């Protein structure tokens, strides 16, 4: 027996609970899955143990048969990016796991005869052009300088406190992925129903539905979802939906040698992440923080969240992402009010004419 449900907010614009923003205890139920749906799953990526091996990138590409691409996401192209050991650049339609490499350094007084790095004979003023920039401004150069983040340097705190005078540089590595947001802008704006929420609470593109309109691309606050130019459709991490249906872990988490990428039930991962953060804080790693863990954040918390050792910007992550559809209900209301006003004005005009 089929009954028409209570008036859909899609039609009324009325959503008293604002289902598009804030914490949601059960995203799957919200998407119509019955009470016996599986637990919400996700990734906890602990960058403090990432060794930047890129097994996740390769395992992902192997499983999902993705084409190779360069640091600009250009399909079937390769090239040295100059951004440390990162040559795939960013998450794109062809790269669904991406490992960022961030080289940081700070000037420290060495207990050596010199206070500078040996061989650094620069004067305090009038120093020659830094070889990294060398007065050029192409994208490669910009990329390299941007990882030497000034704010990060001022907050620099070696991972393990006791490393002595030598630890004047650190190399951060972090495997980025689609966040599978509680409130997924891409999903909310998709007009065709190509994007959908799975019974596991993840967000997946259905290739047989997507028509390549691309609305979702600017809707993602992280810049994750991306269109494949030759194909037209959009692609992103599925959290290996096909593997999940088969009882397997996602390919990246399966491969990850150091358990930097942990897959599991989201609530368990959150508890594990909280404990890990506490451990690191206890070890004096003051800059450690969780990212995407807080369900009161702009996307209602992420299904794939991170432990970072520095500001999110250092890793190329937005500091305070907000689902782009947060204000949709109020916009709907405003639009409806506006529409009513217009209708009223038009009607009154007719009324007036009649008069």
């Amino acid at each position, binding site marked *: 027996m089929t009954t028409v449900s209570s008036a859909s907010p899609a039609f009324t614009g009325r959503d008293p609970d604002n289902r598009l923003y804030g914490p949601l205890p059960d995203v799957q139920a919200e998407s119509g899955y019955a009470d016996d749906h599986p637990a919400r799953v996700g990734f906890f990526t602990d960058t403090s*143990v990432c*060794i930047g*091996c890129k*097994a996740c990138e390769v395992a992902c590409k192997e499983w999902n048969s993705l084409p190779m691409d360069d640091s600009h996401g250009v399909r079937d192209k390769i090239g040295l990016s*100059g951004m440390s050991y990162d040559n795939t650049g960013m998450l794109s339609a062809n790269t669904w796991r991406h490992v960022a490499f961030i*080289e940081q350094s700070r000037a420290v007084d060495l207990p050596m005869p010199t206070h500078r790095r040996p061989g650094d004979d620069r004067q305090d003023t009038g120093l020659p052009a830094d*070889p990294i920039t060398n007065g050029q401004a192409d994208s490669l*150069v910009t990329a390299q300088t941007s990882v030497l983040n000034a704010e990060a340097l001022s907050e620099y705190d070696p991972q393990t406190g006791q490393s002595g*005078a030598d630890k004047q540089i650190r190399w951060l590595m972090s495997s980025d992925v689609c966040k599978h947001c509680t409130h997924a802008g891409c999903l909310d704006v998709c007009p065709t129903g190509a994007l959908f929420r799975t019974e596991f609470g993840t967000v997946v593109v259905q290739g047989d539905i997507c028509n390549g309109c691309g609305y979702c691309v600017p809707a993602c606050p992280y810049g994750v979802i991306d269109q494949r130019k030759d194909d037209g459709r959009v692609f992103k991490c599925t959290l290996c939906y096909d593997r999940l249906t088969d009882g397997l872990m996602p390919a990246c988490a399966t491969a990850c040698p*150091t358990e930097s990428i942990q897959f599991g039930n989201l609530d368990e991962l959150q508890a594990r992440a909280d404990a890990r953060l506490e451990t690191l804080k206890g070890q004096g790693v003051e800059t450690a923080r969780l990212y995407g863990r807080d369900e009161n954040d702009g996307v209602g918390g992420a299904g794939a969240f991170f432990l970072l050792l520095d500001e999110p910007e250092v890793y190329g992550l937005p500091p305070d992402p907000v689902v782009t559809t947060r204000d949709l209900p109020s916009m709907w209301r405003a639009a409806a009010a506006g529409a009513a006003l217009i209708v009223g004005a038009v009607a009154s005009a007719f009324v007036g004419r009649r008069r």
Partner: protein
Amino acid sequence: MAECHPVGFQWVSEAKARGAKIVHIDPRFTRTSAIADLHVPLRVGSDIAFLGGLIKYVLDNDLWFKEYVLAYTNAAALVNEDFVDAEDLDGLFSGYDPETRHYDEATWQYEPQEEPHSGSDDPAKAAEQKQSEQDPAVRSADRAQAAGSGGPPIPAKPRRDETLQDPRTVFQILTRHYARYTPEMVAEVCGIEPEVFEQVARWVTANSGRDRTTAWVYSVGWTQHSVGAQYIRTASILQTLLGNIGRPGGGIMALRGHASIQGSTDVPTLFNLLPGYLPMPHANQHQTLDEYVADAAGKAGFWGNKRAYTVSLLKAWWGDAAQPVNDFCFDYVPKINGDHSSYRSVADMIEGKVHGYFLVGENPAVGHPNSRMNRFGLANLDWLVVRDLQMIESATFWKQAPEIETGELAPETIGSEVFFMPAASHVEKEGTFTQTQRMLQWRHKAIEPPQDARSDLWFYFHLGRILRQKLAHSTDPRDRPLLDLTWDYPTHGPSMEPSAGAVLQEINGFGPDGKPLSTYMQMKDDGSTSGGTWIYCGVYADGVNQAARRKPQREQGPVALEWGWAWPMNRRLLYNRASADPSGRPWSERKKYVWWDDEAGKWTGVDVPDFEAQKRPDYVPPDGAKAQDAIAGTDPFIMQGDGKAWLFAPSGLVDGPLPTHYEPAESPVQNAFYKQQSNPALEQIQGPWNRGNPPRSEIYPFAVTTYRLTEHHTAGAMSRTLPYLAELQPEFFVEVSPELARLRGLTHGEFATLVSARTAIEAKVLVTERIRPIRLRDGTVVHQIGLPYHWAYAGISTGDSANDLLGVVLDPNTHIQESKAATCDIQPGPRPRGPALLEFVESYRRRAGVESGKVGVNGRAPVEDSTGAQETGS
């Protein structure tokens, strides 16, 4: 380790999470450094100074494990009174002959207990044997490895001073030898802060002793030096002093770089070894089986059974033809009489002395230092067989080598006939790999290889079959070894693939009843048993392929004895009797591993004891005991001729009984310890294609080291050809410090040219503070350059080859090249092209006072310039 063995690194990650301190000692700041508690960026080639400093720290601060050292090492042994240390001869030990550049070990020996007692039934023969080992031809043929894992023979039991006070005890010699390795000296030579050194010293010593152990892990970063074997010796001395050998969480672990590189050493395709570390017979020493096994007669330990192992091998190879009357066909084994190692053979190829060459999954035109020299070798063959998955550079050199562009090579001058034979991949054949912890794991076959692709097992089996067919009617005695060979392996499938299982069974060996042997203790010297590789005996114990065992890790303990099979005898931790004290009790509850169970009357524990199971800890060998019977119940090092760990090596190393710091052959730095700049015994290969950069040259002023990246595999055939790996490291690059970039005007992301006396190559510049210059006490700055060596012209990801830049200078013990430390110049911009490149490199050589590197046709000596194409390649 995170860089090159990421999955193995999970155990380091786990240890760190449980509180272990991780120290990464490497000139290069790698992915491992990023996770370590401390990175020690020592200067390339200075490891002995660093480790020597730790030894001194341990001795000075009385931090050595006294009971362990006294009972299990040769610390108390007295050394010959004629021994003179390198400290007293400005860098040379006693016995050096500057003419031959060889050492005579006579003065390094122990002082005998009484009158010289060889232990041999035939003292005259053993003495003669000993004498012949000092023959330069024998020494250059690798006496070090020829002694096998058993260590060289000990001619006499040493006199001992248990108080360690006698100045001639090993302990006192050691103390004097490392007296100058102070933290300040370490700082000076290694270019690190004394505080950093002391931090490492504190951590290492605080984590050693009864309750704790420290492990050292190395890779070819240690072996690829002109003093490579001595690097590892230094670590051995340190670990032995600290009691970290044979105990859980201790040891010195070689992280090897290829799937079965351990197996390739155990079952060697190496010129100087027969299977199981039996030496190849030497023409000057081993004309008969008796002569061949004579050294074993005087040996305690399991090498005392060398005759049984050898006869079993000969029976496996020649079956019924091998009989006592014909010395079990010992004469069929060809004899060596010098260095026949890879680089020497390549030099011979250039001179036209070698006619045919097989390359089996190996790409020397990229992967071997001085690849240019290797390519010249290939260009002067009659024929070359290349077996690989992809069309590698070693197969296409005749039309695409960089020397084609310079005009030094041309297809029209290269007479080498080339056969490219497609190989089967790892899933298209079955067989065993031996991984880095000596564990054999059987791979099941998943699918058939495509088209003409075949396993190497197929290739060699059928090549042998055809050769035997062709010679079937020969009466020439030189063909008997081929015709008498046991070569009747069962085959299966349409391609007639030989049975790898049958080969593994032959390796394991059979008893008189025709059943597989279960232990090498069953091997006999009377010809009643066979066995192709004695150390692998037991892999088919009970007729079961033990290497194929795959009991899931969740269903067994951490030692996982039922996963695969490790030699010897499935023992996972070597010399593990040392995990118990002399009386057989664990040193501590925390580090309990193998111990003596008095009630049961045997050794027991979580691993298979690496000791005779029922030999009591209080066993004292009777006079005249032999082989394992001569090993006391308190001697854990059962493969050593005296059962002891050696702090001082009275024999076995051709370049000194103690490791001492020498600079690499190419170094921008003067040796701070001695007038002797580099290893006095290092091995060189002369030729216009292998010129060396002079030490401390202003023309080649920078130190350079080569290394791997996580994303690629050695010479690149297995990674540069795969899209998902190629995109991750798409181009050849060079890593330099900001300081060097500034000094030379190098621009991040642009090309730079690197120059050595061999050639010049270009690479994209990656400026990074992960590379650190070193400032010496006199103010000089040593700049270091890092080069990953995976690239060449073929595949998806391409570039020049780092190995072209390197020369070949060899560790005299192992004939392994010094590819971890060299010098070069670096300049901005791409390298010259075509013949201009030759002139560019030659101009550098001229300025540096290096002999000309110009070569003639196909890389031959320039005097042969006038010979025509017809004469080449023969």
